[in-house]
């Protein structure tokens, strides 16, 4: 693999495909039991017991502004390790691992799906379909910000 190449885990969410950098993916789990956590954001589904560790689980579809629904036979929880923080993301399926050359990656348009460009590393054409590359650090770091906004919203009615 060349120096300008990067591997991605390809995840199906609804009709779209998202890529997570392979070195940030710790494991891919078949559905584990998720215990819900009261009083938190809707896309946070709860916590799971990942071999003795407490790992929060989010619904990736809901997080990126799509309708949730990862419950089918192929659904998986992709556990990512971002800056030593473990988070599980439910997806409809994990389809592939692909190697992309940097030259294949284009900057993201300002909004893709429900996501602003700041949450993305870029997009790549793969087999004539779009693969949306996630910026996981950004995607998983603004949870407090969102919580605050949710609280403000509920206060204002």
């Amino acid at each position, binding site marked *: 693999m060349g120096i300008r190449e990067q591997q991605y885990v390809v995840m199906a969410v609804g009709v779209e495909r998202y890529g997570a950098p392979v070195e940030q993916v710790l494991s891919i789990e078949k559905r584990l*039991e998720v*215990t*819900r*956590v*009261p*009083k*938190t954001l809707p896309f*946070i589904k709860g*916590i*799971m*017991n990942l071999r*003795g*560790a*407490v*790992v*929060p689980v989010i619904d990736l579809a809901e997080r990126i502004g799509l309708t949730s629904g990862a419950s089918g036979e192929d659904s998986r929880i992709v556990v990512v390790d971002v800056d030593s*923080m*473990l*988070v599980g993301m439910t997806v409809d399926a994990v389809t592939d691992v692909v190697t992309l050359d940097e030259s294949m990656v284009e900057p993201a348009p300002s909004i893709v799906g429900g996501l602003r460009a700041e949450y993305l590393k870029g997009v790549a054409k793969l087999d004539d379909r779009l693969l949306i590359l996630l910026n996981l650090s950004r995607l*998983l770091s603004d*949870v*407090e910000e969102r*919580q605050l906004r949710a609280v403000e919203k509920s206060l204002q009615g």
Partner: protein
Amino acid sequence: MEEVPLVQNEEYLQAFLEESQENVQTMGDLCLRLEQQGPSDDLFAAMFRAAHTLKGMSASMGFTRMATLTHRLEDLLGVLRSHPSKLTAAVTDALFEGIDHLSVLLNQIISTHSDEGTADEEPIAQLTVWHARLTEANANSLESTHVAATSPHQTSGRGVLEDFPEESMTVAMAAQAEGLLVGVLTVCIHPSCPMKAVRALLVLRELEQMADCLGCVPSANDIQEGKYDSELRWLVALTGQDEAPVLRAIENISEVTAVRFDVWDGEASGGKNDTGSPLLEKVEKTAPVEADHPGIPPKRQSGPVSADGESVRLERTIRVPVERMDVLLNLLSEFVIARTSMETLALARDDAELTERVSQLTRISGDIQSGLMSLRMVPVDTLFQRFPRLVRDLSKSLKKDIRLELSGGDTELDRTVIDEMGEALVHLIRNAADHGIESAEQRLAKGKSAHGTMRLVAYSSGQNVYLEVSDDGAGINAETVLAKGVERGLVDAETAKTWKPGQIYGLLFASGFSTAAQVTDISGRGVGLDAVKAKVESLSGRISIDSELGRGTTFRIQLPLTLAVLPALLFTVQKDQFAVPLGSVDEVIYVEKSDLDSIRGERMLKYREKVLPLVDLSFEFYGERTSQAFPWPVLICREGNRAVGLIVENLMGEQEIVNKPLGSYLKHVEGFSGATILGDGSMGLILDLHQWAV
């Protein structure tokens, strides 16, 4: 044999640092007592000893700056010891500065393994200047008893004081006059022993446990540099009745080939050999010498000697990084979880034999757990010991006479908690000194003693340890606090009227809240108390304030005894499992409809002639009011002087649980201190009662 560069030797360095830190701390404490109680020979002697040990150790480890500094301290102490009246506040300050600088050097050695590069001219110069000033009136420095250079040469042992300098005779006589057994201890060290300086130091340290060393041949400096052939001689005054224990302790040091004690029985005789013990030859260096020597009572074995014959003293304690213990603790947590799941399995299968085996496992894991916990426990003293100095400095800079009383220092707390609590306590102490305790004039005007008293108390009760910082100062003016709170918009004036003092004091923990009339250097910037509260709560603790206007204030911190494993009560809400620390639950009751009351539309519970607020957890968690039939199980939980009833669904019984933090991603989640993995592998959230009971 070539000297090994000592600093390379981690083991020695560790032992050196450990001992030195202890000695520096001791010197600081003693200096404080010196200042408080005035000069006394005991204090000078003890400080002098500590300085001397430090000097010797640092020199032999090659830390020359530290050695120089301690040497100056030793000089000054020597003069003071013979002229106690010369101890003035300024001299004490110079001593303090010197001691402080020793800490700086030690810290530097810890981080860089060298004492080079710190600017230490200032404290050294200070000490030197004072030394010169005090000796001007031709004071006779005690340093001289530490032996000017007599050239190290072989001695026969005849005339025990022959090689010792003149002054030794005087000192020996003085010691003898006090009824001490005085004599010369001759220790032979294997000539090819590596690191002779350290070896001699080991002997000296052992010796100092049981005797006062009055002089030595060769000179102290030569010994420190390892410049001796094989024989070392100390003029000693034994603290015990006879020399046998000393001889045995020293024999047990490896590389010591022989040891002998010759009694010195007065000025005239010059010593004689016939009363001295025979020159004991060590049979084997690893075999502790048994009591088959004449005149040695068969008692006090100075502990086992390890296989490689290293000194016993170095091996009585080991330093283990906390992280390594945390790994073990995590493993134990896993074990407890696995054990609990076996318990569940055994119960489900109704298998008596399996149940028996599991309960055996439970016992063993319980023992391991308490053993492991005890390793993590350290006495609160380790935290307290820095505060006398802090209070002294605050006293000086605030120009208030503040006395500090410590109690319960032997109360034990988890190491992590101790490390984390230091800063918080410093905040509280500064606060108490600055805002709590009044100036002497104000105190006298109020009919109080001119000096203020601050108390630092630790005690344990149940699963908790309490730390209290109290002062007998002005107390908190609740009205001022409340007015400030209303002004800052933290509470509206109407609600404020119904508040009890405890609630009002709670305002002090709000961020940026300060009632101090003026911001001082010490405190009053309004940062601090909120940080203290955050710190305490991050350790699953609580903080509360008691205060009486004009009488004083007490900050009380409650901390859990351990952080890792705790007994808990399990229950369900909307079929989800939750746990609450058993220590926070007063009672579990079943509530009928007739027990309910309503105040201003809020559902309340009649409980023991009182009315408690009732929290419907189902509503709080999921927004659905409980729909279950009466009687409802209700947990009565107490939080300080407030109590609250929590409506739950089903009680699942008690269990030991392991508190696992929810992690940084969920740190915004309120109301839960963590989660635990239950016996069946499922998870339950652990309630942080503090957030539900308010």
